[in-house]
């Protein structure tokens, strides 16, 4: 176990996968200078510009090229820079990458990893802050990973690179600097669809993913001090998502709160809450509850940006009310 930042964890895992499998290559803007966040730092020196491939500002080409190159057996890791720019390549991702295998009756495989840094970060405003993971979860053919810790980011990235189907890999920009333990094993892969129990508790289940997991953990800390034991579950992947883990936890706690940074309306929290309400109604001692951003845009000025944040006090208050039966 080494101590490592989230950024270094994914950087290390990518390098390890590139050493392991010569078919793996990365493509995106500015990668040769380390990428916009430094997440590719040092890689061109080791792997050369053919495998750490600089791209023009051309997201549709970056993704479309990856689809074609994947069909011929290479394994591209595609950098979208900000998740928001992936909107420039939505046909390539949704109509092409996600559908090719099925549409061609199994003849095509599209083993690509599409890295999409998400989330609010330093007043980046409306076009550089979005979290659209719910979109991808709704698209058959795609896998969606939203790691919250360095170890998960590395382990899920390895699994993503080894996956024969397209994976949307969403790193949260606010997590780049987060330090954590990183397993030494370069083959440490994390299964898709296996949630992580961040903290055990018997009173309420709090489900989350990505950076919001840490906000939930902070809320659980507060609640613990008040004698409320919250169980925090990090889904890690939204498709597939670990229904069994959530059902088991709700079976114990009888209460489900889902919290995420994305807009609540149509967010993936709705899927989790609806599924539990449908399939585990008998276990529920309180109605399911969701917390997400208001259906509002993300502004530049800190007070405006903060107005759409789901905070630890909000989560604690919601959990408290649920436990109190309000």
């Amino acid at each position: 176990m080494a101590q490592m930042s989230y950024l270094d964890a994914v950087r290390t895992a990518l390098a390890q996968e590139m050493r392991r499998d010569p078919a793996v290559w990365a493509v995106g803007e500015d990668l040769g200078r380390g990428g916009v966040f430094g997440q590719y730092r040092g890689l061109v020196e080791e792997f050369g510009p053919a495998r750490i491939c600089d791209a023009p500002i051309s997201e549709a080409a970056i993704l479309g090229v990856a689809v074609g190159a994947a069909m011929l057996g290479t394994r591209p890791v595609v950098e979208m820079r900000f998740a928001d720019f992936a909107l420039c390549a939505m046909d390539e991702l949704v109509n092409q990458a996600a559908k090719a295998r099925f549409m061609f009756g199994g003849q095509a495989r599209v083993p690509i990893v599409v890295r999409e840094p998400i989330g609010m970060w330093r007043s980046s405003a409306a076009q550089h802050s979005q979290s659209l993971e719910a979109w991808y979860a709704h698209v058959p053919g795609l896998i969606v990973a939203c790691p919250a810790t360095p170890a998960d980011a590395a382990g899920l990235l390895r699994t993503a690179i080894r996956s024969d189907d397209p994976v949307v890999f969403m790193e949260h920009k606010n997590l780049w600097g987060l330090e954590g333990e990183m397993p030494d094993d370069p083959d440490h892969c994390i299964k898709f669809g296996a949630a992580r129990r961040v903290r055990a508790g018997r009173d309420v289940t709090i489900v989350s993913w990505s950076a919001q997991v840490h906000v939930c953990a902070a809320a659980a800390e507060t609640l613990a001090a008040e004698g409320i034991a919250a169980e925090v579950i990090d889904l890690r992947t939204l498709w597939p998502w670990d229904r069994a883990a959530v059902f088991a936890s709700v079976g114990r706690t009888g209460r489900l709160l889902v919290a995420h940074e994305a807009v609540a309306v149509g967010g993936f929290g709705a899927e989790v809450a609806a599924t539990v309400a449908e399939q585990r109604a008998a276990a529920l001692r309180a109605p399911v509850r969701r917390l997400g951003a208001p259906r509002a845009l993300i502004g530049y000025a800190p007070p405006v940006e903060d107005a759409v944040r789901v905070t630890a006090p909000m989560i604690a208050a919601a959990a408290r009310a649920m436990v109190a039966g309000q």
Partner: protein
Amino acid sequence: MERPHAAAGVPAGRNLDLGRLRAHHRLMLRIRALEETALRGLAEKQVFGAIHPSIGQEAVAAGVVAQLLRDDILLSTHRGHGHTLAKGASAGAMLMELLGRAGGVCGGKGGSMHIADFGVGMLGANGVVAANIVIAAGAAHAIRLQGGARIVCCLFGDGAINRGPFLEGLNWAAAFRLPVLFVCEDNGFAATTRAAALTAGPGASARARALGVPAEEVDGNDVLAVEAAAAALIAAVRGGGGPRLLHARTYRLTGHTAADAAAYRPADEVAAARARDPIALAAAWLAEAGVPEAEIAADRAAAAAEMAAAYDAACAAPFPDAAAAFRDVQDIGSPAEMPF
């Protein structure tokens, strides 16, 4: 056999390889027969989705695609039956696909707009105009990474050059000097709209050149001219010269889809185009070169018979089962194992 042809419409100043011309003619007949059979299938409600016939454009498929090697890669469009057949796909499996049968090239899951045969390097028609251009650049990028002499051929229409992926794909291919032959199959129309009316500037070739892709124009109804132009460009591409574009001017003799009566075109324009039907041109050259009319008729009959038999076989073949809907979506998180 070699002789100059000037008089009866045979392209002048060209050494005619009669064997090749005959092969082109046979292939074009097969494409025509395949599509006429598809239209029959539509009329008989055996074919389900939209059909975009390439009737009148067969010389591009025969002249370009038939020059590729089996190992080369092809990407096509919604109007891709001819390209697919020319690349070597089985007409039987193609018709099964159009009839939505389990034995189709895509197991009946793609239909006309997603016809593909990866076994012969045909990486798919595409239901989204111009989407194949960036995918083609990617296939060529993979060839570059993997080494080898394969090339990629990517066909698209004159309407496709107004979408962003045309610029992005050609720029990519040229910036990385990738082995791609782009072919703009210019049939004058983007669905019911005259493509030229909304295409600014001199057109596909000029755009390609401005993107660092050398380009040639050719009469797309003259299969020999297409072949000659394609052969030269393919040689340049295969030789490592980077991408090339061939702009082939032709004409869509039918409507955009089988459902389009194409009433927006003047009758004399269509009549003039019919007079330059690429198959009729080739047949005339063959006749002039001494091939007996009976042999030409026999080729025509053989193509029709082949497709009729394939059609009958497809009609008799089973549909995919419902479970096919859940296969080949994805391995992990598959709908087959995770019903909602």
